[in-house]
């Protein structure tokens, strides 16, 4: 909560805002390190830790984007700070789980969740740049957000591939007919449309950016909505 408050204060902008963001990142980083020390492993196996990691890395991504971007992008905070706070606040609703299932103790599971976290961060940063591009029309933003989305889609693909391998080794199946899997595929195909749309003359520019930013809403729904709004019972054997 302390980190979220500091991220919120970061919206004030300027040098003070930047200090608040750095302080929030420090508090958040300490929380993650403490969780890792308690668990004795990388804390990316349970929802609370996954959401916390996404939130933390979105802020890291914000700072890197600001440094790498050729043009000043003060407005990026207006998208990424609230987005990061949403992830951090939603983590509060989950109980900390300090044990791990035996079938999760495999590098494939860590790769699956690791790439999943990375895809949320990269696609989230890309979507924020898309929203900015739609508002400002700055051409360098268009190129950056496309590159970020491509990286994010690759991370999403690697997450699906490693997740399929893990699920096969754990439960003997690399595909399940559940709403969760169908939504995972839906989001992946949607981003496939987005990446192909860059090749179609009429879809370049703002239509492509709009398609990309809507994709992130689908990704968020697949994570928070499926299960809560669309029942998808966990099936193993």
């Amino acid at each position, binding site marked *: 909560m302390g980190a979220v408050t500091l991220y919120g204060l970061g919206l004030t902008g300027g040098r003070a805002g930047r200090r608040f963001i750095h302080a929030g990142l420090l508090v958040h980083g300490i929380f993650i390190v403490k969780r890792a020390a308690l668990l*004795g492993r990388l804390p990316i196996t349970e929802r609370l830790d996954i959401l916390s990691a996404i939130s933390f890395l979105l802020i890291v991504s914000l700072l890197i984007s600001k440094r790498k971007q050729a043009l000043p992008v003060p407005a990026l905070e207006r998208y990424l700070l609230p987005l990061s706070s949403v992830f951090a606040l939603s983590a509060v609703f989950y109980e900390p789980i300090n*044990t*791990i*299932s*035996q*079938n*999760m*103790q*495999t590098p494939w*599971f860590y790769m699956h969740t690791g790439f999943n976290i990375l895809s949320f961060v990269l696609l989230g940063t890309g979507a924020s740049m898309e929203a900015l591009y739609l508002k400002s029309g700055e051409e360098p933003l268009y*190129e950056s957000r*496309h*590159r970020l989305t*491509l*990286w994010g889609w*690759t991370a999403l*693909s*690697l997450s699906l*591939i490693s997740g*399929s*391998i*893990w699920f*096969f*080794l*754990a*439960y*003997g*199946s*690399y*595909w*399940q*007919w*559940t*709403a969760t899997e*169908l*939504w995972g*595929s*839906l989001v992946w*195909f*949607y981003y*496939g*449309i987005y*990446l*192909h*749309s*860059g*090749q*179609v003359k009429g879809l370049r520019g703002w239509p492509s950016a709009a398609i990309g930013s809507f994709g992130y809403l689908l990704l968020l729904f697949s994570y928070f909505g*499926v299960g809560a709004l*669309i*029942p*998808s*019972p966990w*099936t193993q*054997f």
Partner: protein
Amino acid sequence: MFRLLTSVKTQIGLFAMALVFFLAGSLIIPGRMEEFSGINDALLLGWLSEARPSASWWIYGLITILGVIALSTVACILDALRGTVSFKALPAPIIHTGMLFVLLGHLLTASVSLRLEYTLGPGDSAYSSGAAEDFRVDEIIVRPDAVIETYREVRGQWLKGGAAVKPMLIKPGAPASYHGTWLFIKSADLLPSPKATLRAQRDPGAPFALAGGGIFALGCILLLFQGRAGRMVS
């Protein structure tokens, strides 16, 4: 026809149609849990032959669309190979080939995979008359664990003509495999008597899907290294 199949607009249209079927499925399954309860344990094509069309229509739609996407993918690969092969043009056909392998894997899994289930104690053997490899359970270990709550392990031997040929060790998340037969632990308990429920499985589609995933990942990584975001498709 070839031009139509390799068109980016065709790909976008096909992907959009696939989205509609994925969405329909995600809404239909939760409303008909009983009808779909056995779909993940059965061969898909066998399940479809017994399912009511009102529940399964979207799977037929999805299979059709994925079939056309596979055709279009083959056309894209051929189209890419027709031109001058350069490093810059390499990722797209590699990614498409990976996708093709994944689709082939799914087709094989849906049509010819095999699953058998056994509940065995120490000393019990499982024979399947050639459907899968035979095996014997020697030891079932179940003990409390601070990190994973309960540690489970099954030890035994793979059998050939009744004789032991290879040691077998199965843990949750770490199945044993021998000559294409995979063995998974479904459950293992010591009380009232030591018993383990194991699944023996043959899935000729899994290696294709795995290879497809690897090829796909390779194509993606090449694409990223090139740094040419716009050259995704043929």
